[in-house]
């Protein structure tokens, strides 16, 4: 065989790690149609149904007093649970990634618990703990405190369900970064707090933000656990997802989809924010030197 015979025409040359175009096209088409069917179409349905009777009806659905109170409650719940989980997540990550202590693997497992337990079950746990017939029910009642079927219960359930988000994002990054920079800070005279604030936290800030975004989205959208503890009291203990359910069950489709569209909008905002932050995380973790030796 001569050399010229071995040569393949440029147009037909295929890199060794590439599939044939037939395979590539069918895979792409399959994933696209799957995405359209399961993600894009539902999103479109939400908005078309919400605007079916015009913008006026849409606006009325959102500005209805009970809807408005559901929105306010959701904002309140998110306003409490996200900062709490931010603090908890940072503390847990700092402890797990930078220190050795007894029971560390147990703590890591516990952080994952809300992911493993069905939200309905976690709601029930709180009913069993703080409900009027629960373990602490009598004691709470004696103090005049109501947790279940009240706002504190909704907050508790949301905190429980969303607490892995920040920790789960931050722990792997902190572990990957090791403790050398912290040690350097200590030898330079920084105390523990300064080391955390000026060295550890800036190094994980994008992962923290990413965790907060996910935590926020889940806190707003949480249904199962909140549904069990809230008691569905209109205008009092209904969050946005619960309010959507009630409207839907009452065949009030326009209002249901109008309120649901708020959650859908939130999802879109979350996706955009998440993509932007992910890009920053990628940028800040690709720390390997672009080495130019001098």
């Amino acid at each position, binding site marked *: 065989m001569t050399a010229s015979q071995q040569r393949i025409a440029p147009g037909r040359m295929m890199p060794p790690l590439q599939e044939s175009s037939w395979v590539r096209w069918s895979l792409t088409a399959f994933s696209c149609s799957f995405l359209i069917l399961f993600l894009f179409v539902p999103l479109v349905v939400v908005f078309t149904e919400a605007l079916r009777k015009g913008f006026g009806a849409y606006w009325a659905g959102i500005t209805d007093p009970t809807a408005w109170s559901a929105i306010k409650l959701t904002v309140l719940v998110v306003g409490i649970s996200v900062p709490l989980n931010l603090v908890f997540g940072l503390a847990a990550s700092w402890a797990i990634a930078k220190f050795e202590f007894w029971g560390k693997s147990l703590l890591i497992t516990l952080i994952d618990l809300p992911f493993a337990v069905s939200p309905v079950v976690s709601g029930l746990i709180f009913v069993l703990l703080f409900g009027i017939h629960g373990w602490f029910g009598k004691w709470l009642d004696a103090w005049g405190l109501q947790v279940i079927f009240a706002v504190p219960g909704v907050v508790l359930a949301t905190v429980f369900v969303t607490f892995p988000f920040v920790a789960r994002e931050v722990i792997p990054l902190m572990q990957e970064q090791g403790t050398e920079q912290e040690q*350097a800070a200590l*030898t*330079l005279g920084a105390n523990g707090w300064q080391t955390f604030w000026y060295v550890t936290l800036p190094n994980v800030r994008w992962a923290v933000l990413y965790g907060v975004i996910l935590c926020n989205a889940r806190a707003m959208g949480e249904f199962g656990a909140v549904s069990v503890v809230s008691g569905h009291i209109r205008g009092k203990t209904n969050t946005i997802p619960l309010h959507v359910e009630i409207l839907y069950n009452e065949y009030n489709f326009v209002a249901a989809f109008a309120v649901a569209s708020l959650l859908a909008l939130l999802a879109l905002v979350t996706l955009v924010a998440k993509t932007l932050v992910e890009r920053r995380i990628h940028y800040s973790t690709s*720390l390997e*030197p672009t080495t*130019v*030796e001098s």
Partner: protein
Amino acid sequence: MSIEVRNISKSFGNFTALRDVSLQVHDGELLALLGPSGSGKTTLLRIISGLEVPNPNPSSDILFHGQSVVDRPVRHREVGFVFQHYALFRHMSVADNIGFGLRMRPRATRPSKSEIRDRVGKLLKLIQLEGFGDRFPSQLSGGQRQRVALARALAVEPKVLLLDEPFGALDAKVRQGLRTWLRRLHDEIHLTSVLVTHDQEEALEVADRVVVMNQSRIEQIGTPDEVFHHPKTPFVMEFLGQVNVFHGRVTKGKIELDDPFTTEQHEPHNNSNPQAIYARPHELDIQRELTNGEGIAAKVRRLHLAGPIARVILEAENGGHVQVHLSLERFYELALQPGVAAYVVPKSGRVFEGASKTILG
């Protein structure tokens, strides 16, 4: 400031990193801790810095200038620590990295912003990186980063400078340059410094004194000259340079060879106290004809001529390899070629019995 380490031991679980180590570092000295990985040198350095805590033991102590610092946490020990992988704060500019230690001081002792800027400027000049203050660590080369790390450690005016394999992550050429630069810097500022390295060349070239460590213990302390030419143990001899080991008997200061040279240590023979005799490549000669005395018949295998000396590798009849360093004149005089038969003749060698050693001439 002088450093004294007394009877320090350290174990991590079942692993003993240091066994009863004592050491003195004189004021203004540059001391190298030299040893293979796992010998405990980094642990010792970290214990001096306070990043690691020694095993509790009433007789153990660490003294800076005669004062015990065992109970002092890292941040109050006033040590500058330079890490192998720089440990620069990558979200801070070079200038912010260098000024970090000053900015972290309590308000009462913290210099003003302009003072910090001045100090950073001076340090940038010292490390020859003027104009690099606004860059980020990721925009610097390895050698530049390590200099920034050094400046950052010096900025807080430490009493002691501790360097943990500072050039370990750099390539050979940069290492060589930085090594020379570090020594010049030390001669300028005379800060008591301890350098950890596994590179014997680096230790011998840079340090005032070298501490050779092996298996959690100190094998020998001495000037580079002493440890290289008068090793106290076979380990020091082997670690500090190439060595040929062969077996023979020593009678009245004369070597009687039993066994051809090998570069590896053999199990001792049982009969009539033969001993391992150690000779560095430059302590051997090659002769084409055996004129007098003893020699090993061998064949020339390989020649390395790229350098100030000729390095000749020969294979003895039993298959053992011998390395001989000759001056280039001597080499050309012998006209050696691969495959040529020759004799290896020891000019001098060493025998270690316990800790004492005999030099044979």
